[in-house]
């Protein structure tokens, strides 16, 4: 295993590091967060509490963490990647054993002082570990089945643990996030096509098995599928959120109903509007123009990351940036697809905009790693 890391210049001055930070990325993050605060103010009924101030504190803390991680050399993170992964895995197992039940799912770990959500840690830790693996093996051999066993284990262990929490949404995102690294590392497309066919096969068997003796899912799970396909079939049950969210977004129109004037929002027509459905608030009050701007800002972050991933010379840094950026992409696109009725309600918050400390922290940690890779992943010119 020959590594290229020694070619990198680890002796950057602090000022040099700061200069190398991708400030466009930081700017985009801050802009989106500001939009988030404005929205939380509206969700709070025109009040800084209960959402804005706590979120502002978490964001400030997150910024500090981001900068801190960014300034630490990427070689250190590379060296610690399996340790981080291992700690994340231990925490996930602990959740299973001593986790706090919340809203029917066991996702939180109470450490006395803070409650943490290990699946959030795992989102980052898994990407680092898989990126580490692919940065160390010969790129020409990545498609060999034997070389695939270890990374698939790295991915499937946390996916399995998160799935049984149960947190289907996060499990799928972890799976796809890991898959993206395999994809960019050059694993043969046949594997992916195979997996896609298997997925389609699974979906078909689930659907046709309904009502037969070998029915694969429980009846209530089928009803959820029905609700997704036709929310009007259960307008006051689980279809309610989708319907009300679509009404909120649609009624916003081109220019929106005005800040604090969203009737759907201010009259509490949909639940979880400060978390998963916050985009509906924004779209209702600010209209199509601003919803598209948000979409573009999110894409701006992803595209800047992909650009940096192509620019950095260090393979680990590239893979890390792509993996984390793709996770970020998956989060916001699944959330937007969900609130617009494109995708089932899976409980994925909108990164940077939704209220929530754990997700924000893990996101800022991700950006910290991305910045670290951008700072340290290039040779000094």
């Amino acid at each position, binding site marked *: 295993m020959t590594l290229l890391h020694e070619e990198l210049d680890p002796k950057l001055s602090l000022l040099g590091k700061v200069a190398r930070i991708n400030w466009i990325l930081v700017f985009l993050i801050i802009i989106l967060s500001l939009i988030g605060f404005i929205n939380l103010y509206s969700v709070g009924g025109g009040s800084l509490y209960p959402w804005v101030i706590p979120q502002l504190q978490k964001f400030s803390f997150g910024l500090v963490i981001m900068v801190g991680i960014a300034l630490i050399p990427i070689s250190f993170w590379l060296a610690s990647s399996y340790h981080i992964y291992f700690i994340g895995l231990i925490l996930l197992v602990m959740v299973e054993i001593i986790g706090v039940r919340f809203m029917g799912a066991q996702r939180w770990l109470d450490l006395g002082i803070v409650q943490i959500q290990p699946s959030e840690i795992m989102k980052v830790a898994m990407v680092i570990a898989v990126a580490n693996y692919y940065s160390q093996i010969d790129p020409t051999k990545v498609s060999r089945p034997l070389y695939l066993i270890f990374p698939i284990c790295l991915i499937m262990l946390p996916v399995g643990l998160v799935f049984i929490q149960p947190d289907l949404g996060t499990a799928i995102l972890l799976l796809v996030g890991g898959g993206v690294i395999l994809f960019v590392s050059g694993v043969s497309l046949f594997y992916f096509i195979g997996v896609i066919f298997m997925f389609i096969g699974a979906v078909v068997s689930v659907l046709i098995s309904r009502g037969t003796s070998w029915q694969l899912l429980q009846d209530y799970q089928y009803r959820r599928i029905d609700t997704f396909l036709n929310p009007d079939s259960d307008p006051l049950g689980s279809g309610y959120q989708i319907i009300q969210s679509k009404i909120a977004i*649609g009624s916003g129109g081109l220019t929106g109903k005005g800040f604090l004037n969203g009737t759907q929002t201010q009259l509490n027509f949909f639940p979880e509007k400060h978390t998963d459905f916050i985009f509906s608030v924004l779209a209702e009050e600010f209209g*199509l123009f601003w919803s598209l701007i948000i979409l573009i800002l999110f894409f701006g972050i992803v595209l800047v990351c992909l650009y940096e991933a192509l620019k950095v010379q260090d393979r680990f840094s590239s893979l890390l940036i792509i993996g984390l950026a793709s996770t970020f992409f998956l989060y916001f696109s699944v959330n937007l697809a969900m609130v617009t009725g494109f995708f089932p309600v899976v409980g994925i918050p909108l990164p940077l905009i939704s209220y929530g400390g754990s997700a924000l922290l893990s996101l800022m940690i991700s950006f910290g790693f991305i910045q670290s890779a951008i700072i340290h992943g290039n040779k000094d010119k």
Partner: protein
Amino acid sequence: MFGLDTPIAKGKRKLSRRVFLLGGIQLAIGGLIGYRLVELQAWDTDDFQELAETNRIGFGLIPPERGLIVDRKGLLLAQNEQEYWVTFVPEETHHRRETLQKVSQIIALSDEEIEGILQEIDQKPSFIPILLKENVTWDKITELSVNGPALPGIYSGFGSVRYYPQGNSLSHLIGYVGSPSLVEIEANSDLKSLLSHPNFKIGKVGIEKAFDLELRGTPGNKKFEVNSLGRKVKVLTSNNPVSGKNIQLTLDAKLQEYTQLVLGNEVASVFIMDLEKGDVLVSASKPTFDPNLFSGGISSSDYQAYLENIYSPFFNRPLAGQYAPGSTFKMITLLAALESGLINEDFTFYCNGSYEIAGGVFHCWNPKGHGTVGVKKSLKESCDVFYYRLAEIIGIERIAEMARRFGFGSKPELPIPDLSSGLVPDREWKEANIGQSWVVGDTMNAAIGQGFVLASTAQIGLMLARLVTNKKVMPRIVISKDGKEENVAEWESMGISEKNLNLVLEGMVAALNEQKGTAYDARTTDNDFLIAGKTGTSQVRRITVQEREVGVTRNIDLPWEQRDHAIYCCYGPIQKPRYVASLIVEHGGSGSRVAAPIGRELIMRTFYDALPPLRAYPAEIRSQIIEMRLNFGINPEPPKPSANSRA
């Protein structure tokens, strides 16, 4: 170094290709999301805006204040008072009985009331609040609020309740209000939305019912935002309710009260009119009921007691009662005869106490007979035989035609529900309704206001009003609505010859003011206010031949329900008639002895608009008047009676 085909460079190239592919996929997904947003927010936005509107807008009605009812002098007859009430929304709990039992520990509901409420709940949609108790004290309301969590569906509120300051005295005419019944809700679709206001009441009887729409007013409405739970968040627009119209009636509440006092415990009815505009001053019915019991929802025991009272307190006697008018009908027969031209003022007939015709014998009330009876004497002494003779001459058709011109047989044009039309019989009617052909005896009976003839107290009063004015007097009961005076139509002439009319009136004057007149004892002695009238005694039972031989049993010796009805109508002053009064005392006995003195007392009280001065009574009965007043607990000699203060 990029050209080198090392594994690392290969990996790098592959990575770049894959990153572009990945970016392309991501942009495609982004494009789809963007497309979706345009679809929702630009193309379909109208549909969603409509959905958002229907989501958030709720409507509510604000009940209007019911209009006031005042008498001709502005005295309040029906008003609204603030009160607290407790309601129950059945759909908010499954343990209805338990909740009601818990509530009853605070606001005292009897077991039967709870059963009644549970029945009511079954009959109405479960989201409609049911009124549990009205007139609840503030203390109880606070206690209920404190126990709110344990009492799901229990609400308190405040609003106005109808109050009738005059109590029993006017209850038949004014009526009362109550919660609309299911039938009434079906009939008034506009009421449905007001149902959510548990104390919204509608007029059930009398004036309250007749003018319900005007008294009710127009409800205001509120448009408000509702949240996802349907709870009102804020009022968007509201239109204030328009209070119902205030109605001024022609009634004189004080006079009515005095009427009730004079009637005492009789089962009776009185109707008094002012001839200037046809104003109904008094329409009194005895016994009465308390309309205030209904405002708060009458208890079933109170209601049952009223229903079981054999004297039917709910019956509006002056307007809905039907009695044989007896001798008060003789004016009609006499006028019909005079107008027919078949007799003139010089017509006389000899009364020997009975009249034989078509093989039947018809008796005069005075078995000794009246001797030679002329037109005036026939009314003065109320000779039956004279009228049998007239009837034989003119026949039933002329009598019936004259009776109808004077308002018999049709409902008086008063805006009161449940008026009786009485009955003017003729050949056709008897064949259609009894299935027998008309016989001479029927004509004989009709001529003296017996047999099939039926009339209400009001109709007798109206007949007299038309008689003394020679105009087709129309009674009116409403002076103004919201200060706007009702139109008073010019009355048509009755088209009766003045000469004939005066002959009839002279007979009535004689009945009171000449000795041997049937109501001579009920005359007045104040020259400013001399009155004229006609008594009537309507037979309730049939007097058998044997009884006539041994002498007709005196009323006082008969059981109450077999005694005759005492009837009287009078007007005054005779020079320039202004007031008419009619009254019927059920099973009161003789019209002259029972009804006529009451008539004098009331028409004098009307004329003087105060307690009549003693000088207006014949000297020999003044001591009785003093005694009566002492019994009423009023000063028998009022300090300074002012003559004709009403005019």
